[in-house]
């Protein structure tokens, strides 16, 4: 797998990311911010699916919990927006860990069904009338867009972009280090051969539940950021199809390769719009064909492409 171990490439990418919002329009900046948000969520899914081999169709639920925790804290408790992220992350970690415990007994499609149930149940629970006081029911919650602090000469969109970028870099580095650590190797050992992993003394139940928790934490932070960026949460933004989008992003970016999440995030945000510009009526068909063609041409996603490119580069040099 290609890794973020070439500091020059990494620094160049970060430099471009820093300059970009100064030269592009506000709406595009907003979209790029959302790409980063999706990327964080996809990293979370990748930790679970790509590195630990557990299948989830339920990550829209964690995203929703993160988003609602952030929105409710800002709306009801006047929390500063940056402070909502750790709270949302911890809430999702606990929830994910607890959900991971019964899910331990389930494998493959059965785990998929359990997580799927979670994804389908979440919007319904959020709409529930007894909870309407906190969740705003079907209408959802509107939150204010934060302004740039310290009198920085940035628009709100630009500031949010930089804020999200900072969080994204931190989360990416953490995920990268986690995967490279002893814990990460244990996660992968469980994915590759659970029985061998157990005989090496790895506590499978603990690591699987922890991975579920960490994965939910990432997705929850993404959800909280998403709520701040979009300024709005409503139950119907977090349906099963969000889970599907994240899965598509994961496959497109490359399963088991962390930087792939950025390709995946860009894919799920931009490609449906692109498909719509080809043909209004057939946008879904164009999107579907694009996914299938991509799987044919690049079965390992952006990861395989990057690997091939870097091999070509080295051969040339």
């Amino acid at each position, binding site marked *: 797998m290609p890794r973020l171990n070439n500091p020059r490439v990494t620094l160049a990418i970060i430099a471009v990311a820093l300059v970009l919002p100064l030269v592009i329009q506000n709406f595009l900046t907003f979209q790029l911010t959302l790409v980063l948000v999706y990327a964080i969520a996809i990293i979370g899914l990748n930790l679970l699916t790509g590195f630990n081999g557990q299948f989830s169709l339920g990550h829209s639920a964690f995203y929703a919990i993160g988003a609602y925790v952030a929105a409710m804290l800002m709306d009801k408790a006047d929390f500063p927006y940056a402070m909502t992220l750790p709270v949302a992350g911890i809430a999702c970690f606990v929830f994910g860990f607890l959900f991971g415990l*019964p899910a331990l007994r389930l494998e493959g499609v059965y785990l998929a*069904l359990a997580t799927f*149930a979670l994804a389908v149940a979440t919007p319904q629970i959020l709409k529930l009338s007894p909870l309407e006081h906190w969740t705003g029911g079907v209408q959802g919650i509107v939150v204010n867009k934060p302004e740039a602090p310290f009198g920085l000469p940035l628009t709100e969109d630009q500031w949010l972009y930089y804020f999200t970028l900072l969080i994204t870099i931190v989360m990416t580095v953490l995920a990268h280090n986690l995967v490279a650590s002893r814990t990460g190797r244990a996660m992968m050992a469980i994915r590759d051969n659970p029985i061998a992993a157990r005989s090496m003394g790895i506590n499978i139940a603990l690591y699987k539940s922890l991975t579920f928790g960490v994965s939910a934490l990432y997705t929850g932070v993404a959800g909280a950021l998403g709520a701040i960026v979009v300024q709005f949460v409503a139950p119907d933004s977090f349906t099963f199809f969000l889970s599907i989008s994240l899965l598509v992003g*994961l496959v497109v970016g490359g399963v088991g390769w962390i930087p792939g999440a950025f390709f995946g995030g860009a894919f799920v945000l931009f490609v449906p719009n692109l498909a719509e510009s080809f043909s209004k009526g057939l946008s879904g068909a164009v999107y579907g064909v694009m996914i299938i063609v991509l799987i*044919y041409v690049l*079965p390992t996603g952006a990861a395989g492409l990057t690997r091939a490119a870097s091999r070509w580069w080295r051969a040339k040099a």
Partner: protein
Amino acid sequence: MELLLQQILAGIATGTIYACIALAIVMTYQTIGHLNFAQGEMAMFSTFLAWQLIQWGLPYWTAFALTVALSFAGGVLIERIVLRPIHNAPVLSHVAVFIGLLAILNSLAGFIWDFNVKPFPTPFGTAPLIANGFIDAHQAGMIAVTILLLAFLYGFFRFTRVGLAMRASANDPVSARLVGIRVGWMAALGWGMAAAIGAVAGMMIAPIVFLEPNMMLGVLLYGFAGAVLGGLGSPAGAVIGGLIVGVVENLAGTFIPVVGGELKFTIALAIIVAVLVMKPQGLFGRPVLHRV
């Protein structure tokens, strides 16, 4: 007591819908080992075909037979063209391809036949079957069709050479190939059959949920739940699983106060997950043993 009985019967009637689609899901799972997320959309597309044929003036049962045949061919074609090239790809690639298929079929149906809700005829009529009207004729017909379908499948897999060959290639592809079974074509055949079963399910469901490109979304979710609950290895289990989902959903909606009505699907799913935690292979599935 009468309310309970009535709700159970109504649950069985809706459960039959889920059972039909669960049956199609199990067919695909048996032949290629994956859950087909596009199964519902394939059924929806077939139902639109039937609607079009009826609009062109064909009698119902002719259109029915023609649709089943066309869907079978369509299923085989999809397997040959779309899935054959990736049959060794990992699970997630399959999921992505199924999602692609789902998007394509949904969008195509909307493009060709638009998104307006259309009524779909029933061959059984809608008069109440018995005097106090627990279930109507269409629901009874639906149950009958499902039972026929199940009997047909049972006979097919038990007593015909092709059925036996399909089971063999699902069970042990390598040995099946060694005795001369064309394993690849068996998968295509399985897809065709799943598409045909889906078409029957779609045509049975359409008079109740009405015809439109998104008609199958909800049904597919219940179908999945039923298939997994019954155990993905057993067609009869899928049917029973679908029926249980229907009954549990109905009873939860009626008898659990306050949140029951709003959360009936959630409650049904929660019960299913609880059952799965107790019995991870589904109610009628056999545990899968791995050689170490």
